[in-house]
């Protein structure tokens, strides 16, 4: 059988990069080369990003449909790589100062990215599972990376157990779907499910699949790992979990449900709508009393998962476009917020919201980026979050009007706890008025995040068109 390996160049390049960074980390003397290793990893990731961008417009399948390359998967691959680059770049000084031995830190981040990319392109259940587990195992290592810190280890074991259970539930669902249809290929599955009758086995498998993916995207009621893991993990990893892991899980969720199980849409649409509603309600309401900013952002990310899930309900190109658009702008808002959290932690050694008092005087840029990121997540015009929510919710006004109302009301509620942080930053007097010095890398990352959030809010057309093309390619298989 002829295999066109050039279609896999993104994955091969990323695997080689991960191995090189790993070997360099092992062989170079550790103290002096930390910073160089991070810069090398960013350089390599930029090259891989370039290779990925060159695949835009390719539509091909590999190994009889086990691996799918289309604009949809390229879009999400770019998203994962941009997230990895911005996070490594923006938090390099945090990693230097807070992670003692980091020879495997950057390579594990690269392998997590590789897992996401395999998962995004997966065309059958085996590839899906391998990608998912590569990502999850890398993230478990990264979450427990500060192995002398009890909090980090505790977060690691909690993530391991809940990720293990969710993988098992997901696999059980996949095995039942395999039993009901006799295929593991998503494209073949799409034909079989539309043509054939729907057996109880298939429905049961579907429900388990929703539960398994629910864990991965941290949708309520499968969200309980998120706040603990987000709080205990090193902050760059929290950011990457919130952006990369969630986006890749959404990509495969779209692939399996909209791509493979579109014939059962009436069965899963209501289920996902209820999950979305619970996530939006619970995420926003429980975020209100939080005093730790990472926990607050964790609950807010549960709510964001609920918003993104809205895009799946109609199984239409418009909905998928909304998912992709929102995932991309959520990336910039989240990275902006978490890089500020990193910078403040380096100075104050605290993640409590109270320690952000007077941040506008200590570092006007950090305070401004935090404010803009939070308001974008809340969906205040003219920021990007507003446009994203608009795209998502306009797709469901016909069938799920009740969910639109829940989304609108809860967006208003979310403004309350987002603005509470703004109030502490801008109104309160700082306890320690010394300015927070951030390196050039942090400043550049913050400015990128801020400009992207502002520009995509005022002029969303280019990204909107790109995601539209990507969504169209998803439906041409």
């Amino acid at each position, binding site marked *: 059988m002829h295999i066109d390996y050039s279609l896999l160049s993104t994955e091969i390049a990323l695997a080689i990069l991960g191995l090189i960074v790993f070997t360099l980390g092992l062989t170079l003397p550790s103290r002096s080369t930390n910073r160089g290793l991070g810069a090398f990893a960013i350089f390599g990731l930029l090259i891989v990003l370039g290779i990925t961008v060159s695949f835009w417009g390719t539509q091909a399948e590999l190994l009889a449909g086990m691996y799918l390359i289309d604009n949809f998967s390229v879009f999400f691959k770019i998203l994962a790589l941009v997230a990895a680059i911005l996070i490594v770049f923006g938090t390099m000084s945090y990693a230097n100062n807070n992670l003692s031995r980091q020879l495997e830190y950057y390579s594990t981040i690269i392998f997590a990215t590789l897992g996401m990319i395999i998962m995004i392109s997966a065309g059958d*259940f*085996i590839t899906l*599972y*391998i990608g998912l*587990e590569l990502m999850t*195992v890398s993230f*478990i*290592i990264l979450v*427990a990376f500060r*192995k*002398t810190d*009890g*909090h980090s*280890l*505790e*977060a*690691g*074991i*909690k993530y*391991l*157990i809940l990720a*293990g*259970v969710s*993988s*098992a*539930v997901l*696999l*059980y669902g996949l*095995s*039942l779907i*395999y*039993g009901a249809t*006799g*295929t*593991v290929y998503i494209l073949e599955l799409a034909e079989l499910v539309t043509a054939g009758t729907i057996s109880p*086995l298939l429905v049961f498998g579907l429900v388990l699949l929703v539960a398994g993916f629910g864990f991965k995207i941290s949708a309520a009621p499968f969200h*309980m790992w998120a*706040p*603990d893991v987000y*709080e*205990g993990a090193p902050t760059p990893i929290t950011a990457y979990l919130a952006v990369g892991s969630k986006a890749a899980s959404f990509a495969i969720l779209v692939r399996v449900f909209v791509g493979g199980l579109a014939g059962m849409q009436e069965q899963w649409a209501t289920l996902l709508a209820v999950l979305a509603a619970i996530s939006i309600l619970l995420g926003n309401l429980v975020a209100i009393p939080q005093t730790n900013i990472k926990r607050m952002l964790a609950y807010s990310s549960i709510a964001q998962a609920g918003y993104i899930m809205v895009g799946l309900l109609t199984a239409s190109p418009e909905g998928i476009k909304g998912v992709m658009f929102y995932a991309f702008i959520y990336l910039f808002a989240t990275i902006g917020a978490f890089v500020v959290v990193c910078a403040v932690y380096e100075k104050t050694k605290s993640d409590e919201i109270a320690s952000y008092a007077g941040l506008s005087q200590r570092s006007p840029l950090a305070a401004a980026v935090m404010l803009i990121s939070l308001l974008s997540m809340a969906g205040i015009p003219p920021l990007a979050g507003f446009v994203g929510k608009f795209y998502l919710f306009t797709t469901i006004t016909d069938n799920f009007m009740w969910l639109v109302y829940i989304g609108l009301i809860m967006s208003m509620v979310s403004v309350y706890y987002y603005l509470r942080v703004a109030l502490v930053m801008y109104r309160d007097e700082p306890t320690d008025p010394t300015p927070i010095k951030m390196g050039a890398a942090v400043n550049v990352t913050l400015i990128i995040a801020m400009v992207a959030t502002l520009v995509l809010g005022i002029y969303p057309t280019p990204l909107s068109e790109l995601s539209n093309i990507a969504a169209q390619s998803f439906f041409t298989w």
Partner: protein
Amino acid sequence: MATSLNPTYFIFLSAALFAIGVYGVIAKKNIIAVLVSIEMMLAAVNINLVAFNKFFTPEAFIGQIFAIFVVTVAAVEIGLGLALAIALVRKRGTTNLDDFDWLKW
């Protein structure tokens, strides 16, 4: 090869094993016991995959290949779990999940 078994037996066997695994994860307090329970859930998946392969697609070996991947990845996960358990015992002196309450559950 003819057999008097039918797929229903295997579905019920694996469902029972899966349910025991879920019970173990929820009820057990020791990290090692919880890891064993997760392994049981994965064993249930493998029974399903191999049985479905035998009964529904005997000409292709997709289910068996899938099962081999599941076994391999499960070993990785357990290895990581045990490493974390050892690190936790060194740092916190316990393997009881109820003691891990520094982060609010």
